[in-house]
């Protein structure tokens, strides 16, 4: 048994106990305004959060919570034995980088300014590209994509033709999703055998859910190149996704799905589309929790903690935005997933 790993796992168990529970989240959600929210946040492990009270307060707070999450990853990675630590860094850096690339491409697509694009980026060190600056400063979207030639994202260049044909970003965004899923899977394959399962389950669950959501948005559309729209599939195959698209209604499409996906998509039947994201988070939580339960003193605990932390970050971003907007706490709590609370 790796003593280093045991130490990190024990430290991680302690950190899991520090995650905000349901009472703490409810207390934050019930704050009368954002000042009170920040005051209440002081009493949590987040401590004092310094932000400028400006029009962009919600965006500033999102940056703060993202930064705190990145620091959490870094502190865990710093303690974790090299191979596992490298995986965790690569896993989260890749997630953020794919998101950053999507945001850069969207900005270039609508000719946003360098500042407008930069303010939406997650502050990470570029992972599989050298720098984001040349991409942001590229003359146009096509020039930005061409700069990715020779990197892990080089296959985006092949999607330019479809992009030109459709004058739409989705071919490039779906290609990025594919790169994220396949790279994560190959990263996971380098882990010791007993740790591969959690990574595979998580990646497959995320990819399947995203594929189902893409299919649901294309309900009733026929004649699509399924390989183009769903470049990678796992438990939900292309023929299942085709059935989803051929359904007459969202309700029917959801009912035809198999578990656990039917459960995740259940809110769609009642028209509460946004609740699906909360259910996806819950699904991710359940996936990693199941893996964690199978090995309470291994790597799974570390990955589970980081997934919990990411969900907590998303919750706090949502809550702080809601507080800035003055949204009632009942409404806010509806979209918050606090499974460990």
């Amino acid at each position, binding site marked *: 048994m790796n003593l280093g790993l045991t130490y990190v796992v024990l430290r991680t168990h302690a950190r899991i106990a520090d995650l905000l529970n349901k009472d703490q989240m409810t207390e934050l959600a019930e704050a009368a305004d954002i000042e009170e929210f920040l005051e209440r946040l002081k009493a949590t492990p987040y401590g004092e959060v310094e932000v400028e009270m400006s029009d962009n307060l*919600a*965006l500033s707070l*999102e*940056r703060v919570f993202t930064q705190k999450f990145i620091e959490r990853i870094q502190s865990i990675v710093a303690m974790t034995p090299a191979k596992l630590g490298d995986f965790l860094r690569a896993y989260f850096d890749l997630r953020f980088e794919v*998101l950053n690339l*999507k*945001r850069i491409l*969207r*900005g270039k*697509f*609508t000719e*946003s300014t360098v500042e*407008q694009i930069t*303010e*939406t980026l997650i502050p990470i060190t570029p992972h599989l590209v050298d720098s984001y600056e040349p991409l942001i400063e590229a003359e146009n979207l096509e020039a930005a994509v061409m700069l990715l030639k020779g990197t892990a994202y080089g296959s985006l260049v092949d999607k330019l033709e479809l992009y030109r044909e*459709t*004058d*739409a*970003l*989705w071919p490039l*965004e*779906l290609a990025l999703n594919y790169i994220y899923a396949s790279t994560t899977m190959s990263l996971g394959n380098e882990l010791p055998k007993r740790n591969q399962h959690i990574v595979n389950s998580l990646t497959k669950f995320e990819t399947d859910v995203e594929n189902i*959501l*893409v299919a*649901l*948005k294309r309900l009733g559309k026929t004649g699509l190149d399924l390989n183009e729209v769903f470049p990678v599939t796992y438990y939900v195959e292309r023929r299942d996704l085709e059935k989803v698209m051929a359904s007459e209604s969202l309700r029917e499409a959801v009912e035809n799905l198999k578990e656990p996906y039917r459960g995740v998509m259940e809110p769609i039947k009642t028209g*509460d*589309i*946004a*609740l*699906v*994201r*909360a259910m996806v988070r819950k699904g991710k939580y359940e996936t990693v929790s199941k893996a964690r339960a199978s090995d309470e003193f291994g790597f799974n605990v570390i990955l589970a903690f980081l997934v919990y932390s990411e969900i907590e970050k*998303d919750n706090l*971003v*949502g809550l702080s*935005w*809601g507080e800035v*907007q003055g*949204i009632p706490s009942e*409404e*806010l709590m509806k*979209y918050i997933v606090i499974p460990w609370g």
Partner: protein
Amino acid sequence: MSATTGVRPTKGYLMDTKRRIQVVERGTEFLKLKRDQLAKQLTESLDVLRGRRGLLLKSLEEAYGALTAAYLSLGPTEVKSQTRAIKTPLELEVLPRSVMGVVYPSVRITKKPEIAAELDITLAYAAERVYKIMEELIHLAEFEERVERIAEELGTTNRKVNALENFVIPDMRAVIKFIEDKLDEESMEELVRIKLIGGAKASRR
């Protein structure tokens, strides 16, 4: 000032006034028909307007809920980034249309905003709701303007009918009566004069 001030009590003027009163009375009847039609249109439109406003409020609530949920689920930065992928703006064409002579602007959507990115389903749903509201708002604005203009026209038509019924036509009738009285008086005087002359001539013989 009396309606008969400056009136020439001649047969020609009487005939002219009688012809004019006929035209005015027919015009008044037409205006009354227009007024009734406008009133009917207005009543119907107000009912529709009330219904549409109610529906719009419901749609607004739905869209606001969907948008709030999208922000809560995705975070403001992601929403901001995804909404940047909407390239084409909404384009409208405003043309004049007419109902019972009432001209109002008619709005036609010539280009819908195109969502070119792979929007998250929550945001795509919210975007659909917001677009639906924009469409409803445009049609409601068009309808409100139409109702407002019909109401204005109804007011004007009503004032015209009242003025014609209560002032112009009674005045013209007074003028006719005045001329007819005058002409009767004159013909009576003429008759008396003829009789007197006839009597005088007979006594001289």
